[in-house]
């Protein structure tokens, strides 16, 4: 059977396999290597690839196009100024950008100082967001999983992730016990991980 007839469409698993993640990562590393040398064209290529995603996450949280654009600039200028730290230290570059976009947006929403501790955690290469085709298949699956979650789990995850509420605030808002809120969020993420691995 020709290789292209094998059913390989599980981007999540494919991306987990660093040895086979030839769809995006090496190219990404090459771009970052050029950025280290001060190549503005490479930085613009990274911008073109990731800015819409960063912007969309920031806009979802902040609901303000101007502020969301600020987040895009802030993060990608950071990459431009210090690209060396992204080459191998952060794991999945695209996933890191999404997480940082969300965190910076929540910081801005809640008017608190940017917190670096979580930004600095290395992400596993489980989420290859560099390749557009695989990304769209994978994210469609993620959307289906999220929509299929029980309403309470969806709500808790939404409040924590996109509105930046603490578990205490979520419990106060929903009237649920703290432990229930924690469990719902964990179960939502567990369901997502299982579904993506299946």
């Amino acid at each position, binding site marked *: 059977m020709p290789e292209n007839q094998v059913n390989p469409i599980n981007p999540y698993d494919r991306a987990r396999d660093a040895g086979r993640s030839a769809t995006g990562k090496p190219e990404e590393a090459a771009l970052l290597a050029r950025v280290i040398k001060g190549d503005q064209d490479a930085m613009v290529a990274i911008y*073109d690839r990731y800015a819409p995603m960063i912007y969309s996450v920031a806009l979802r949280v902040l609901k303000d196009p101007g502020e969301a654009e600020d987040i895009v600039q802030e993060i990608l200028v950071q990459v431009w100024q210090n690209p060396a730290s992204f080459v191998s230290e952060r794991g999945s570059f695209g996933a890191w950008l999404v*997480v940082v976009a969300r965190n910076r947006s929540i910081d801005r929403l809640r008017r608190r100082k940017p917190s670096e501790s979580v930004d600095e955690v290395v992400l596993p290469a489980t989420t290859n967001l560099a390749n557009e085709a695989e990304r769209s298949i994978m994210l469609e699956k993620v959307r289906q999983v999220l929509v299929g979650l029980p309403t309470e789990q969806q709500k808790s995850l939404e409040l924590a992730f996109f509105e930046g509420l603490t578990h205490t605030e979520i419990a106060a808002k929903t009237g649920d016990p703290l432990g229930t809120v924690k469990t719902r969020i964990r179960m939502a993420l567990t369901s997502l991980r299982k579904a993506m691995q299946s």
Partner: protein
Amino acid sequence: MNGAQHIPEEDLALYAMQALSPEETRAVQAHLDVCPACRQAVSEALGDLALVGASVELQPLPQGARERFMQRIGADSNLATSSDRSTRPAHSEATVTAMPRRSLFGTIGWLAAAAALFFAAWLANQDHNLRQQLNAQRWQVTQLAAKADRAQDLMDALTSRSAQRVTLTEGKQTAKPAGHATYLPSRGALIFTATNMRPLPSNKTYELWLIPANGTGPVPAGLFRPDATGSASVVLPALPQGVPAKAFGITIENAVGSTTPTLPIILSGS
């Protein structure tokens, strides 16, 4: 194990989302500093969260955003290649040494300036809060508009004359007149579709009836005339809320309809 208990998975997920209190965050951070297993768990939770984040619908960037970014990194590059920052005079020192001895008026001036600054900060805070409220409301309006569009699509699909309606049957059976009612008593919401209905003379109409479960008289639930293919629908007719149905029935009435059904009931279902 590092001689310490691991952090529960729930708390690691919350930590990854920065959804713990400052005290809890510090405690988790202290543990992570010495526990590779929990660091790995946080890392995996962040991977999951990245998927949640990336699943948002992609929005187009504002016009000119790319150019603004290019200008920014261009300016940054120029700055990096320009003269050494350390050769610039220390601004704060120069300011201090040049400052004249304070007089009473000078002190009042500084106090006034401080008050003005405080007022400006308060105004900025108010402005920020109002902008956030406005943006939140805009977002709600956008969401409501999207829901309204969706509802309108649903209505159009159910009621438009140009909608295609097909009755599926087993084999090559001749399709018979049939009606399908979906009813939510608590809201008095009814959606009824009929297929293969026979044509009527112009002075007649079909009338749908709700037969209440409590034994009271039939409630008129809408008039309809089938199109050329025999299809018709009644969507959300005016019905009282909280009336459970025992059955639905269809009669043929004069074109203006009736308040009581005229026998025979040509289609019914319970």
